[in-house]
């Protein structure tokens, strides 16, 4: 595997700021981005990604490739939480298994844009519709996880009346982050090139800077949360690495089946591989308060996210380019 790819990925300023954040925590510095400033970066990124995606989507329009890619994304968003749940049930109770399954079935927008940044340094740009895939993949795993928890959880007395399907769908699809990215995508679609020119300095020019700040904060958070995993036992940390690799590889295979370009294949596989850092925690807190957030949050934030941006992105890109050799081997 090309070591240049990894290095190239790592010396990019936004990624370096991620490491700076981790370093700060490891040497016990008091560097901190206080609440609610991180929320500002989160809102900004969701708005900018969604809007950009919408503008691009309007350019390409909806064709067969788009439909195939979105269907593959949707398929993964439904299937991943199901098999993740049953694997996790080997060691965990129903609530935690469901919450972690939801986390790995959904996506991480910041992992997505780190992959875009990686492609840009190679002179590539993913298709605009991949942002639609991102938006589509955020929610289904939330619904699946709640259904699974309902089916397998021990019945509690006088609990029936509290559960409402409309509440579940609301949490899944009207979650603040899902709504903001989807809404911004629709606004991008509606306003097109002209709207893009209006907002470009804000949504594009300063984007990498805001991303650097965001990743600095992610580094701080990831490093701080690692200690929470002490209580997680020997099963979950490896899971947080094996699961994304597995999901990413399935994503690659699907991409090849539907004939995606390498850059779009990378986006699909990194979406499959990434674990939710914004939408799922918000939904789980309300819908599965029995699950322990100090498991599913740090697994995603402190293991899967750094793994994906350091190893995952270049690895999947390498595999995508080797896939024509590998897939035949796989079939034999």
């Amino acid at each position, binding site marked *: 595997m090309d070591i240049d790819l990894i290095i190239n990925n790592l010396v990019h300023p936004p990624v370096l700021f991620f490491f700076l954040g981790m370093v700060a925590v490891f040497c016990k510095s008091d560097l901190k981005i206080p*609440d609610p400033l991180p929320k500002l970066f989160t809102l900004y990124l969701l708005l900018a990604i969604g809007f950009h995606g919408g503008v691009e989507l309007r350019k390409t329009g909806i064709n067969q490739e788009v439909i195939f890619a979105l269907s593959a994304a949707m398929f993964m968003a439904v299937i991943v939480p199901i098999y993740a749940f049953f694997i996790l049930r080997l060691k965990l109770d129903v609530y935690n298994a469901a919450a972690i399954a939801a986390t790995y079935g959904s996506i991480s927008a910041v992992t997505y844009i780190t992959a875009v940044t990686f492609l840009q340094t190679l002179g590539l740009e993913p298709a605009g519709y991949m942002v639609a895939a991102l938006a589509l993949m955020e929610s289904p795993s939330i619904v699946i996880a709640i259904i699974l928890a309902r089916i397998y959880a021990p019945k509690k007395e006088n609990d029936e009346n509290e559960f409402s399907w409309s509440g579940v769908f609301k949490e899944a699809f009207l979650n603040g982050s899902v709504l903001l990215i989807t809404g911004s995508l629709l606004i991008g679609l509606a306003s097109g090139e002209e709207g893009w020119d209006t907002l470009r300095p804000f949504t594009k020019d300063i984007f990498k800077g805001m991303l650097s700040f965001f990743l600095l*904060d992610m580094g701080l958070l990831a490093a701080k949360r690692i200690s929470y995993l002490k209580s997680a036992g020997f099963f979950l940390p490896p899971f947080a690495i094996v699961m994304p690799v597995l999901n990413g590889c399935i994503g690659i295979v699907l991409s090849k089946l539907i004939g995606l370009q390498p850059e779009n294949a990378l986006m699909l596989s990194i979406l499959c591989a990434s674990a939710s850092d914004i939408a799922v925690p*918000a939904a789980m*807190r309300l819908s599965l*308060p029995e699950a322990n957030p*100090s498991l599913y*949050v740090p697994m995603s934030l402190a293991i899967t996210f750094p793994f994906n941006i350091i190893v995952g992105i270049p690895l999947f890109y390498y595999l995508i380019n080797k896939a024509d050799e590998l897939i035949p081997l796989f079939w034999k």
Partner: protein
Amino acid sequence: MKRVMKVEIITDSIEVENVAKLLDEIGVYGYSIINDVVGKGSRGVRSGYELTGLFKNSYIMVVCNEVEMHKIAEAIRPIIRKFGGLCIVSDVVMSIGKK
């Protein structure tokens, strides 16, 4: 100068609007809310999740009479069961406020 009760509730801040609604239904005169409360309890550390502002508690204080106090405890029990937290009660003297 009147003896009244102070009810203090700590629970997940996503439930704060529901608690407020219950208090309105009970008809208490007023209440105060502090939203940025972190802490530790049976469900582990709740230290806030900076990216999204999740996972914080709220502190709700109600100055009320004894009848209301019992109604409040009754009404919020299911919320605290589900979302964690606690409710404590103490005697205070209302020094300035509505009769």
